[in-house]
């Protein structure tokens, strides 16, 4: 699973619903500004995740001149996939820390 996809699923996991810009903002916050997802990348990923059933449109707001704002949420299948991926990444991170001889858990990993 690529990093932008993992981050999209992650930010949706902690929220009821998020719209497009909300997802972008949340990803920047979670990554401490290191990751910026362009609109093109975001919506290509949302399209694929929707087709795969990991994400769904919770509701959409429509107003004049054809403007639309869709709010997305994680599906149960998406939650399961995200959980598996997070566990896999945690196991790899723990292995790395073991090999480095770290004795204290990293704060971010400790707050799962």
């Amino acid at each position, binding site marked *: 699973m690529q990093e932008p996809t993992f981050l999209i699923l992650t930010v949706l996991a902690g929220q009821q619903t998020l*719209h497009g*810009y909300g997802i972008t903002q949340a990803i920047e916050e979670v990554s401490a500004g290191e990751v910026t997802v362009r*609109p*093109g990348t975001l919506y290509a990923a*949302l*399209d694929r995740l929707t087709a795969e059933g990991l994400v*769904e*449109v919770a509701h959409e707001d429509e107003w004049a001149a054809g403007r639309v704002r869709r709010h997305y949420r994680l599906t149960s299948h998406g939650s399961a996939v995200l959980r598996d991926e997070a566990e896999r990444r945690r196991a790899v991170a723990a292995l790395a820390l073991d090999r480095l001889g770290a004795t204290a858990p990293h704060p971010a990993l400790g707050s799962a």
Partner: protein
Amino acid sequence: MPDRSPPTERRYARLLWAYPRWHRKLHGPDMTTAMLDADAARGHGLTRREAGGVIADGLRLRLRVRGVPGVALALLLAVVGAATAGATASRDVWRWTAAPYVSEQRAAALAATVAGPAAATGIERRDAAYGSWLEADSVLTALLGSPELRPGGVHLTYPPLSYQDHDPVGKAAAVLVADGWTTAIHRGPGSLGEVVADRDGLRLWFVAAGHEAGTYEPVIAVYPTPPSNAYAVGIAAAAIGALLGWLVAAAGLARARRRPPGLVAVAAVAATAGALASLPASLLNLVALGIADRDGSGAPPWVGYEFVLARPLAAVGALLLVCGWLVSLVPVHARIGSLSRVG
């Protein structure tokens, strides 16, 4: 607060033209809203670099193909597209820029410089750059193609001549050079050799055939010199055709994601069968385009559409590809799966 005037929305809508139509319809309004929301939060619109990134993402999406079967189909269609575009472009340039065909009389007069005083024992004429020399206008040849393809123009055969004390090919080349022709000599198995001579947009092809018992039979063909720019244009067109073939495959595969499985299967089978059927002719075309020598003596870049069995296969392949594309366009009254779960 940044200006939310329609010009900004129009500018963002124009950026989205880089995206496939299905993506614009499905996500365009939402993407525009997201970009405007970002403008409101940041206090300024997209920078040029950011706008370039939006466009680049759209172009990448147009090219994106997922999965091994999808990539395989896209490659097949890229090959077919390259061969079709290369053949079409080079054939058009050939027709527009090649010199006019000569008459039998003029060809015989030009050939007399190397053939000697003897009259030709056989004269055939085909006013076509390349094609079948079997029974003319045969329906079977037109349908199935021909295993025997030669350059067009006027072909003359002469009575056998003795060569015991000279090199007929070298002598012919010397005579042609003295007459103002630019020549190149080729030697290979099956004949004493051949001379390819060019002058004033015409080519004279002299072959010393059948070298048994100290004699040879002169065969001379006179036809318009193959225009070298036809190959250059053909190669450029082939590159564009490859890209178009890939884009068509990517668009079809993206559309297939939102179609019922039965429809997808029919379209996929038709497209794959069509591409495979077109492959022999396509490969022949691309090989001819790629190995054309400086003399342009080889088969032209559309030889695949003339060759036996490759021709009808290419026709069937084209029909199947069109059918596959049309099936993928069949409208279905289904919303994207996620919207059906809304509420």
